[in-house]
């Protein structure tokens, strides 16, 4: 499946970037396409475009705080999770999404 994601933690210093990397590695290892934006102390990096979001099967929000530009994801299937869960066991998290999306017929 095609995943777009946003990672953001409270301080925006460390967890945000660890979560992004873990999410991307786990998703790619399971054969998915993923683009993950970060919203942290250096602002928005790797920003998702309207095309990225339009093409995505699912939006993953790995966030501990409210994020900017939420309106982009209106109407898209969205999963929200804390950065900790993604850092702790990214593969299990991706598998959970796979099961949920399989019910919608998306692989």
């Amino acid at each position, binding site marked *: 499946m095609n995943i777009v994601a946003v990672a953001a933690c409270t301080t925006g210093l460390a*967890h945000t*970037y*660890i979560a992004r*990397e873990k999410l991307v590695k786990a998703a790619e290892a399971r054969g998915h396409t993923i683009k993950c934006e970060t919203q942290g102390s*250096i602002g928005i990096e790797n920003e998702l475009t309207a095309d990225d979001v339009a093409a995505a099967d699912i939006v993953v929000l790995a966030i501990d705080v409210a994020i900017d530009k939420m309106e982009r994801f209106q109407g898209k299937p969205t999963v929200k999770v804390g950065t900790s869960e993604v850092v702790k066991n990214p593969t299990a998290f991706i598998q959970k999404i796979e099961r949920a999306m399989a019910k919608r017929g998306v692989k």
Partner: protein
Amino acid sequence: MELRDVLTPQMVHTGVDVADKDGAIRYLARVLVDAGYVDDLEAFVADVYLRETEGITGIGGGIAIPHGKSASVTVPAVAVATLAHPIAWETLDGGDVDAVFLFCAGDSNEGAREHLVLLSKVATKLADDDLVVQVRHAQSPEEIVRLMCG
């Protein structure tokens, strides 16, 4: 600026002998003060503990990443210690911690973007489980710098 400019051997200590979490935080806060990145040790430590109340900083695999966003910080930086003995810490995997990365950033990060970008790169590397194992077993600050900046 590159990773090597913020992660210097001076900021990395191996085989550090501390009794507990407080000892580790204070040891690394002192390293940041001595390097000139933090100007008030007690104020900074208080801000690190404030962040500790907001969520778990033990990310699993023996690594903890406490951090302080504090007016006492003059330049965003990171100090690293590998420990002589594992210590108890609140962690995502329930295990103890034997390597600590203490990050610091100012209240206002104006003009500090370049440093913050480099800190985000340090954090990104900590998502690499194999690299983390190598860092924990490294014998010298120079080896850790080489691993992290490779």
